[in-house]
Structure formats: C-alpha cells, structure tokens
C-alpha cells in the first residue's frame, strides 16, 4: 500500500476538486458545497491512510516521490514527509472538512458566488499540503508564495468591512517576507553549486553542506524573516489581527490554524538543519522575540473589544510558545512545540469557529454586544468554554500537554526565558475567561436582545448591573434573548474538535510517537545534545 502516491494524491485531489467546483455553472452552489465537502473528506481519508502507511521507526523521509521538474534550476518535484510534516497533514485533513461545513451558509453572504469561495478553499488546501510535503526547497518556496493567492481572494472577496485593507496588508507582508527568502533560496543554490559542483535544491543534499558561518547568518536571516512574518513573531505581527479579524471565519481558521504554522514548521525544517551555526548564534535573539511576543500579545489580547481580533492576538502569544520550544534546542521542548502546532490548530480553530457562530447570530464582532448567551444556548456556550479552556491550556485539554512539554523542555537550557514565558499562562487565563464571562454569563444584553411582542416596553430598557446568576428572563422580563442553540450542522462541526481536544489531552502518546523521531533527527542536524543524526 505504501507504493501508492499518497502525497501527490493529497495535492491533486483538492486541486482538481477546486477546478471542478469553479467550473460548475452559475446557481449550482449547493452542488459546489457538496463537492467541496466530499473532496475534503477524501483528503482526510488520504491523510489517515498516509499516517497508517508511515513507519515510525523507518527512514526520516517516507512516501517520497521525485520527478524531474526544472532541470535547469536543479529543482525536482520532490515530496516526502517526516513525522512533523505528517501531523500537519493530519491537521489540514481534519480542519478543512469542518471549515467547509462551517462555511455552508456564510459563503452565501459574500459579494461573490459561494462556489468561488469553495474553489479557493480547495485550492488553498492543495497548496497547504504541498508546502508541508515538499522536500525540495524551491518547490517549498513555490507553494509558500502561491498559497497567498487563494487566501488573498478569500479575505478580499468574502471578508468583513475592512477586507480590502486586510487582504492587501496580508499579501504585501507575506510577499515581502517571501521575496527576502527568495534571495536566501538562490543563495543556498549558489553555495550548493560551489560545494557540490552542481546546483541543487534537494533538502537532503542541502543539509550536508558546510556553509561558512557568515554566509549562514545572512541566509538564515532571509529564511527567518519570512517565517517570522508568517508565524507572526512580535515585530512582524501587525498583519495578523487585521487579516484574522476581516477574513471569513473559515479563512481565519485555516490562516491561523495551518497557514501560519508554515512559519514555525519552516524554523524547524529549514532554519535549524540548514544553518545550524547561525541558528545557535541567533537563538537568544529569537527567544527574546518569542517571550516578548508571549507577554505583549497576551496583554494586547486582553485589551481587545473585537472577538476575532482577540483570538488573533492569543494566537500570536501562542506562536511565541512554539518559537520558544523550537529555539530551546531540546527534544522535549521541540516535540512540545510541534505538538503545540497541532493542538493550537485544533483549539484556536474551535475558538474561531464558535466565535463565528456567535457572530453569525448577532452580526457584531464586539464583546460588549453580547451577554448572557449561556442560558439560552448551552451547547454554544459549552463549546466556547472547551475552546477557551484548551486555549489557556487547562490540564485535561490537549494544549496543556504541549505547553507543559515546551516549558519543562526549555527550562534546563533557558530558565530565565521559561520563567518569563510562564507569566503568559496567567494572562491567557485572564483574556479567555474575561471574554467568556462577558459574552456568555451575566445579564442578557446586546444585539441578540429582542423585544418580546407580547409585553409592553419598560421605561428603562437596560437592566443596571445584576448578579452573575441573573438571567435575561429575570432582569429584563419584557425583552428576551433570541438565540438559537447550535444547529445539527454546527454541532457536527464542533463535536469532532471537542472530542479531539479532550482525547489528545488525555492520551497524546500516538502523536508524540510520530513527532519525536523527526524532532530528534532535526536536532541531530543542528548538532544539539538532544538529537542524533539519522
């Protein structure tokens, strides 16, 4: 079974699906949605089969295929996965069908036909798979940049009121990062030409190079800046709150859940193995950025009034933890960081989805426009709570395992940074619980409040104060909160994520088994104590 080209299929199926969906005639939006859902489920199936075909104790890169692509550039269409890439493919496989289901009605509201939305979504999926599965640096770069186009159109065509601004900002930031990386990619090629006699972009050949430390530093910076913009570390982060807030919910989930992980994935896959000396010398600098990011973004998150911006800022804080785990150079911390990448995708994905469901009911993104929702919509509130608790890494949820691994792994090497990062956990509890409390508990208020036609209007429509246990019915008898609880479709979107969050919180071992050998090999390239070269 392992001869089947799973990775090519995982790129080709959604790409062809996108073309089919785009080519459907006008007015066949329902069919477009069904095709998109079907295709994304096939990709999930392929991802699971790929995982089954993957031998944990085998080679570092498995399921490899290589086809000559641009011989003049020394580039091949080479695919292959290690454990790290594999868990990201699983994450993509899980998230995309849920995003399709969650966007079922939202896509109709955009200014463009819904089938366009799903076509871009499937194309994005194909490119996301490509970016994680590429083992040729030029091919990686091509997917890395081409991935911008579908996301740009998703934000620009289906986003919120400031979508034009957000879409252009997203594109230009990423493009600048990508172009800086392009200089390094070409530089790497030139170094390989001089050392191997023939230029190549094959990852396995490139990590054998012995690059002069000064050159390493320049090349490292090119890659690092691109990745630091993608997985926003603090000075490069300002595009994310805009994009995360303005993108349609499905776009936000994939943007923060998967797309930005390309940055942290890039640190591990490219920065560390290819430029070990530079990585070591820049590590303190990166750790400072990571810790500043954890704290600063958490503080900013607390100050947000817009829920989607808030969730975006929490993600920046979490990306700080991931970067901390990667640049601590220990096996536990780096394994924790990779696990964090998956868990963050699930937890923040769920948080974005639930926030989106709330917003679709009230039509407002502001926290102050909601209150007392829990009493009327217990399922919605429950999903919100699970997502929030996972986001603040409560024990029993998946994020706890990864955050704990990162912290205990980083502590022996970098105690000061780790202690400072721990403050971020407290701040996380604050921003999550405050948002939850304000929107879900307390007196009923805000945009969801509607006049009860049976009763006359009171003189003072809004209740002043009121205890935490007061419900809408008790304090404002003449107005009722009209909230529909989760529909069956929404429940089907939320339930798998809740199950995964709890399951991986209780039993994360299968994922750790997949990730750890790849992390050991990566740190082996770095020459760090935790790793062995494979």
């Amino acid at each position, binding site marked *: 079974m392992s001869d089947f080209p799973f990775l090519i299929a995982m790129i080709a199926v959604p790409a062809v699906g996108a073309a089919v969906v785009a080519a459907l005639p006008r007015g066949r939006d329902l069919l477009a949605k069904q095709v998109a859902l079907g295709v994304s489920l096939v990709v999930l199936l392929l991802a699971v089969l790929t995982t089954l075909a993957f031998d944990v104790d085998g080679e570092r890169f498995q399921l490899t295929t290589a086809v000559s692509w641009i011989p003049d550039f020394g580039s091949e269409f080479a695919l292959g996965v290690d454990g790290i890439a594999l868990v990201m493919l699983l994450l993509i496989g899980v998230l995309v069908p849920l995003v399709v289901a969650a966007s079922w009605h939202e896509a109709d509201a955009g200014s463009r036909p819904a089938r366009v939305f799903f076509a871009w979504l499937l194309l994005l999926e194909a490119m996301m798979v490509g970016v994680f599965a590429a083992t040729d640096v030029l091919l990686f770069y091509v997917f890395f*940049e081409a991935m911008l186009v579908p996301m740009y159109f998703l934000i620009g065509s289906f986003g919120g009121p400031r979508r034009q601004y957000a879409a252009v900002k997203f594109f230009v930031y990423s493009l600048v990062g990508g172009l800086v990386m392009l200089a390094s990619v070409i530089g790497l090629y030139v170094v390989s030409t001089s050392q191997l006699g023939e230029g190549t972009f094959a990852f396995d050949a490139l990590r054998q190079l012995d690059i002069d430390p000064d050159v390493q530093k320049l090349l490292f910076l090119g890659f690092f800046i691109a990745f630091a913009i993608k997985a926003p570390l603090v000075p490069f982060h300002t595009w994310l709150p805009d994009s995360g807030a303005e993108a349609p919910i499905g776009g936000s989930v994939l943007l923060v859940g998967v797309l930005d992980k390309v940055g942290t994935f890039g640190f591990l896959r490219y920065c560390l193995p290819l430029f070990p000396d530079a990585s070591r010398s820049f590590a303190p600098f990166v750790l400072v950025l990571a810790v500043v990011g954890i704290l600063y973004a958490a503080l900013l998150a607390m100050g947000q009034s817009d829920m989607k911006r808030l969730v975006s800022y929490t993600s920046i804080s979490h990306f700080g933890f991931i970067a901390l785990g990667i640049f601590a150079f220990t096996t536990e911390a780096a394994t924790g960081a990779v696990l964090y990448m998956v868990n963050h995708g699930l937890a923040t994905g769920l948080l974005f989805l639930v926030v989106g469901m709330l917003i679709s009911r009230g039509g407002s993104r502001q926290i102050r426009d909601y209150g007392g929702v829990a009493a009327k919509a217990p399922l919605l509130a429950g999903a919100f709570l699970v997502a929030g608790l996972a986001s603040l890494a409560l024990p029993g949820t998946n994020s706890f395992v990864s955050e704990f691994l990162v912290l205990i792994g980083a502590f022996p090497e970098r105690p000061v940074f780790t202690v400072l990062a721990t403050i971020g956990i407290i701040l996380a509890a604050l921003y999550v619980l405050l948002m939850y409390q304000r929107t879900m508990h307390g007196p009923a208020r805000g945009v969801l409040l509607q006049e009860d036609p049976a009763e006359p209007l009171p003189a003072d429509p809004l209740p002043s104060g009121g205890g935490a246990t007061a419900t809408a019915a008790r304090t404002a008898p003449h107005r009722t909160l009209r909230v529909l609880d989760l529909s069956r479709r929404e429940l089907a979107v939320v339930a798998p994520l809740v199950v995964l969050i709890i399951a991986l919180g209780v039993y994360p071992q299968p994922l750790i088994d997949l990730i750890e050998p790849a992390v050991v090999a990566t740190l082996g390239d770095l020459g760090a104590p935790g790793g062995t070269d494979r």
Partner: protein
Amino acid sequence: MIEAPDLSWAALAPMLVVFGAACVGVLVEAFAPRESRHPVQVGLALVGTVGGLVATLLIAGEPDEVTAVGALAVDGPALFLQAMIAGFGALSVLLFAERALDPARSAFVVSAAVPAGSPRDRELTTVPRVQTEVYPLALFAIGGMMLFVSANDLLVMFVALEVLSLPLYLLSGMARRRRLLSQEAAVKYFLLGAFASAFFLYGLALVYGATGSVLLRDIREATTAGSGGVLLVLGLALLVVGLLFKASVAPFHSWTPDVYQGAPTPVTAFMAACTKVAAFGAILRLLYVAFGTAEWTWRPLVYAVAIASMVVGAVLGLTQTDLKRMLAYSSVAHAGFLLTGVIGLGADGGGSGLSATMFYLLTYGFTTLGAFAVLTLVRDGDGEASHLSQWAGLGARSPVTAAVMSLFLLALAGIPLTAGFTGKFAVFRAAIEQGAWPLVVVALLASAVAAFFYLRVIVLMYFSEPAADGPTVGVPGLPTTVVLAVTATATVALGILPGAVLDLARQAAIFVG
C-alpha cells in the same frame, strides 16, 4: 571589379521572409482594391511573421555562422530572439486585425494626416473604413528588430535601429480615438528617438575612432588588448545610452508612459513586447560580444541604471491612475529586472546571464502582450476605459476578463506558478551567481513595491463595488481571443513546467564571435 559579398541565404531566410512580405504589402496597398485590402494585408502580415518564425525554427539546428562579410551573426541567441520577435509580432498583428471591438471596426485612424478635431476628422471617426498601411509598417518594424538582434557590426545595428524605429513612430500616431494624445505621443517618441539615435551614432564614431573598426569582433580584440582609453569608454557609454532608450530603461524612459498611453493599444502591446526583446538583444550582443572581455568593465554603468530603472518604475508606478501608464512604468521596472540578468555574465564569459535574460524576455513578452490585449476589451463610449476607477467591480460584471487580467497581473508581480516567477528566478540566480546580491536585494524590494500596484487593480476588480456607469466589456473577435488564449496558456505553462524552454534558452545562449 567589385565582388559581391558572400551571403548565406539560408541563414538570412527569416529576415528575408519578413521583409519580403513587407514589400509585397506596400504593393498590395498600391494596387489592390480597397475592399479586399484588409483581409489580404492581414493574411500577408501573418504569413510574413509566422513564416519568419518557422524559418528560424527550421535553421535553429544548423551550425552558427557569421555572414555578409562579418556584418550579421546568425547564432543561437540571434535565432532565439528572432523567433520571439516573429512570434510576438504575429500575435500583435492579430491584435491589429481585431474588428469586433471598436464600433468603427478598427483601432486605427482612417487618415492620419487629417488635423485632429477638424470637421473632416470628426466625420472620419465613424466611417467604417479601415487603415491597412499599419500592416506593412509593422512588418518593416519586425524585420528591423530581427536584423537588430543579429547585427554583428555597429553600422548594421544602426541601420536596423532606424528601420525598426521609423515605423514605430508612425504607428504611435495612428490611434482612432484621442487623436491629439496619439499625435503627441508620436512626436515625442520621434524627437526623443532621433536624439537617442544621434547618441548611438556618435558613440559609433568614437568607438570606430578608438578601434579602427565597426565589427564587434574587431572591437573585442582591441578592447582585450587594452588599447582605447577615454575614447572607447565614451563611445561605449553613448552606444549604450542609445540602446537603453529603446529598452525604456530609467533615466532614459521619459517617453515611455506618454507613448504607451497615446499609441493605439495594439501598437503599445507590440512595442512593449517586441521592442523590448529587440533592444535587449542588441544590448546583450554589444556588451557580451564586443565588451565582454574588456578589462575595464561596463558593469558599474549597468548596475546603476538597473537600480535606477527598478526604483523609478516601481515607485512612479504606484502613483499612476491610468492603466496604460501604469503598465508603462511596469515596463520600466521590468527593464531593470532584465538588466539584473545582463549583469550575470561571468568574467570568463560563462554564467547564465544570457539564457536567463532571454527567458525573462519571453515570459515578459507573453504577459505584457496579454495584459494589453485585455485592456482593449474594456471600453466606454470614448474608446478604451483605461482609467483605474473605471475597472472597479469588473470581477462581478465580467468574471472571465477579470480572471485573465488577474493572471497577467500576478505574473507581472512575479508570483510563483506563473511565468513571471520563473523569469525572475532565472535572472536573479544569474546575478547572484556573479556576486551581485546587493542588486538582487534592490530588485526584490522593487518587486514588492511593484506588486502593490498590480494588486491594486485586482482589489479594484474583485473587492470593490461596480461603478454605476461602468465600462462595457466587449466580446472579442477571433484574433483577440487567439491572442488571449495563447498568452494566458504560455503564462501558466512557463510558470508550472518551464523546464523544456529553459533548456532551449540555455542551449541557445552562445554568441558566435
């Protein structure tokens, strides 16, 4: 008795086909009845350009040769560039021949000599008569360009420069609508072009004075020997200025926006694709063959103008509100990227600069031709709607047109999986291989800035509400449809599977001395 020079007819076949068709075209203009002129001229022009393309492909495998007493070099680069010029020329002729878009059935003025705005002129704008002289003119320009890239002798190069320029000056003034703008473009182009030609001629004289020859081979021997000094440096500088003018490289670009805007759009497309190829072909030959091994080097000069061109093109492109002017500045910026490739010549004559620059010319030619072809479709009552604001909401009104335009814009911005990225990668690699990474960093920053104005058009088309009295999108006839199909296919194909063409460019990239 004077002996006739030894000519290799087979090697000259591509140029002979094109020039022959042009001469027949002049006779057709004189003798064929008016009604049948248009189809005959279009057919003849297509036969000439496609015939030229086929002829280059037929002799592509033959050994390189220098013929006509050393005046012409028919080698790999010459044939590659000639094939490009003939091919792009054929596509441009198709754009010229489009009759479905303009209500008056042609983009060209019936009688260019009638004063703009006079009663006779107003009368003529609606007359469904068509101008057919443009086809022989275009053929002469194409022939001149093909001669230009294979000229191995500065005098022949100068003659070719004039042969290609004079028809272009005329063609620029022939727009059917906005006559004054068009005439202004023609005069401006002519005056500045004549000035640049004079520079070239003066440089030629100085180089002749320094080396005693106009043959590139002899000049190389003289420069390698180290003789020459001030006279030679000055001569080279003036020659390069003349060529950079044609290639619209900043700071010699000031004609470009006005001429691109004023000229009929099919002519603009023709100039943007073919003239660029021809001018860079000549620059490459002059610098690589005659001065490639010079001890003192032309690199600082090219370095400086490349940076100037990229910065000027990208920054001024940001401020434009007219699409044709914006694409003109984009052409200036791309000239800078091309020069980045020109830098990629190794000190030993190696390096991938030549093949990279030729490949870039190919990708840029297709993309820019396609972009201008889309421009001809979007019209309002007064001809083409080239103001940016008129394009708002085009994505909702005409999804296919907007999608095709987006493809070309993304390719111009250099996004991967389009031809633009492959071309950029090739030239940047060539430059970094020669250690010119500061230039590449500038080029990357300029790319980012330029991407912003390409994106702005996409934002307008897709993410803005349509204006109330927006333009109409014409249904293209067969010629424009063919052009759009070919250019869009090439843009995607060269982005996804460029391997074969890159190989071809690499094999062709050897100049014969």
